[in-house]
C-alpha cells in the first residue's frame, strides 16, 4: 500500500521494545548486582531508486541519489557494566566486588555461571551457596564449629575455630571477560559465557582490575531511575508521533478512495 505505513509501524515496534527494556531496568532497580540495559537502534536498508554516482551525461554523475528509507529496528541491547552503589549489610556472607570481576557458581547442569550478586548463604553442610542454593566455585565449606567468618579483600577466606585457632578455608577467585557486555543473561542474576564475551580469565581479586572483595557489603543495581524515566518519556512520544504517521498515511488512502465519485 503506502511504504510509510510500514515504516511508521517499524518505529512503533522499536519504541515498544525500548519500553520493554526500560521497564525491565526499572523493575530491577532493587536487584542486587543487576546491570542496566539499553536499546540501540539502527535504520533499515534503503531502496535505491537512483544510485548516487550514476552518469547523467558526459563527464557528470549524480552527486546524490534517491533513496527511500524503510524505518528502524532494534539492533542491540547493550548491558552497561558500571559499578552499582555499595550498601552495607553487616552480614558476614555478603560480598561485593569493587571492580570488573565475577563470582563463579556451579549450575544444576554442571556448567559454570557467573554473577555479581554476592549475597551468599550457608547450606546444611556449611557450604557457601547463592540465594538459589547454587554452589560457589571454588567450593568453600565452613565447619560447623567455626565462628567469625572473615574474607580478605584478596579473597582469602578464614574462620576462627572453637579452640581459638584460625583456619584458612581457601581462596575465593574471580573471573573477568574481555567483553562482559557479550555475556548471556539467564535470569537469577546469572550470566553464561558466549562467543562474544570471550573465555573467562581467572585471577586474584584486588589485582589487575579484578576488584577487591568487600565483606559485609552488597552491590546494588546500577539503574539510574531518572535516566530511565526520561527515556520512557522520549520513547512514549516517539511512539505517539509514529502512530500519527500511520493515521496520516491512512487519511491519504481515504483521499485516494474518494477520487472517484
Amino acid at each position: 500500500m503506502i511504504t510509510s505505513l510500514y515504516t511508521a509501524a517499524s518505529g512503533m515496534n522499536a519504541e515498544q521494545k525500548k519500553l520493554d527494556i526500560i521497564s525491565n531496568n526499572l523493575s530491577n532497580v532493587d536487584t542486587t548486582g543487576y546491570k542496566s540495559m539499553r536499546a540501540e537502534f539502527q535504520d533499515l536498508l534503503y531502496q535505491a531508486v537512483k544510485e548516487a554516482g550514476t552518469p547523467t551525461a558526459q563527464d557528470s554523475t549524480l552527486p546524490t541519489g534517491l533513496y527511500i528509507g524503510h524505518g528502524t529496528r532494534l539492533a542491540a541491547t547493550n548491558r552497561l557494566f558500571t559499578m552499582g552503589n555499595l550498601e552495607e549489610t553487616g552480614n558476614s556472607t555478603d560480598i561485593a566486588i569493587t571492580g570488573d570481576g565475577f563470582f563463579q557458581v556451579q549450575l544444576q547442569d554442571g556448567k559454570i555461571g557467573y554473577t555479581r550478586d554476592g549475597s551468599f548463604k550457608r547450606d546444611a553442610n556449611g557450604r557457601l551457596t547463592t540465594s538459589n542454593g547454587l554452589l560457589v566455585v571454588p567450593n568453600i565449606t565452613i565447619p560447623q564449629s567455626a565462628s567469625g567468618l572473615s574474607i580478605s579483600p584478596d579473597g582469602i577466606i578464614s574462620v576462627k575455630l572453637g579452640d581459638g585457632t584460625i583456619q584458612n578455608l581457601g581462596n575465593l577467585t574471580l573471573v573477568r571477560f574481555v567483553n562482559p557486555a557479550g555475556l548471556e543473561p539467564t535470569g537469577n542474576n546469572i550470566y553464561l559465557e558466549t562467543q562474544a564475551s570471550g573465555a573467562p580469565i581467572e585471577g586474584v581479586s584486588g589485582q589487575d582490575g579484578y576488584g577487591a572483595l568487600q565483606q559485609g557489603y552488597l552491590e546494588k543495581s546500577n539503574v539510574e531511575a531518572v535516566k530511565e524515566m526520561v527515556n520512557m518519556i522520549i520513547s512514549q512520544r516517539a511512539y505517539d508521533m509514529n502512530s500519527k504517521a500511520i493515521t496520516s498515511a491512512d487519511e491519504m488512502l481515504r483521499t485516494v478512495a474518494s477520487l472517484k465519485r
Partner: protein
Amino acid sequence: MRGIYSAGMGMLNSLQRLNSISNNLANVNTNGYKKDTSLFKAILEKEFYSFPKNSQKGIGIGKTETAVVLDKVVPEMTQGKLVETNNNFDMAILGKGFFKVQSGKDIFYTRDGEFKLSADGYLVDNNGNKILDETNNPIRVQKNLEINENGNINNTSNKIGIVELKNLSKKGTNYFIGTEVKDTISKIKQGYVEKSNVDTLKEMVNMISANREFEILQKAVQSQDSLNAKAIEITRT
C-alpha cells in the same frame, strides 16, 4: 486534459514526502541518524506563444512547467545532540567527520559511536564490524579504553580514523557510503552518544502539510474530471 496528470503526479510526490517523514520519525531514537530531506524539481517545460496579426511566427510570452517529480533524497548533515552516557566505549563526533568501519571488503562510514569490545580484543560496532584507524587497520583496544579529542588511543600510537565525505548516501544499518575527504576539525567526545538530528516538530508540521497538499491535489484531479464530463455532455445532441 494535461492538468489531471500534473495533479496526479503531485499526489505521488506528497506520498513520497510522507515516506521520508515516516522514516525520520521511525528513526527519532536512532543514534547518529541523519534526517532525510526530499527535493523536488519541475520538469516538462512548455512555452506559450502569442501570434500577432499577419504573422506566421509566434512570440514566446512565457513558460510553464507541467509536472513536478522527486529529484533527490538528501541526508541533512546537521549535528545531533550529544548526550552523556558515561560508558567509555561510546563515542560521539563533534563536526562533520565519520568513523570508518570494515565490512567484508568494503569500508563504510558511520556517526553511530556505540562501540563494543569484541572477544578477540578489537573495537567493533553493533554489527560486529571492526572500526578502523587512520591507516585503515582494525584497532586493538583494552577495556580501560581512553580516547582524547583527536582520536589518539591511550598507551598506543593508534589513532582512530575520522574522515569527511563527499557525495554521501545512506546504506542502512547506520552506515553511509561516499568519497573520503581528509578531516581536520572533527573532535571525538568519549562517553557521549550523538542522538538523531530529527526535529520532531518540523516533521509533524510537514506531515500535516503533505496531507493537506494531497487532498487539495485530489480536488484538482476531480475538477479536471468534472470538466471532462461536461465536455462529453456537450457533444451529446
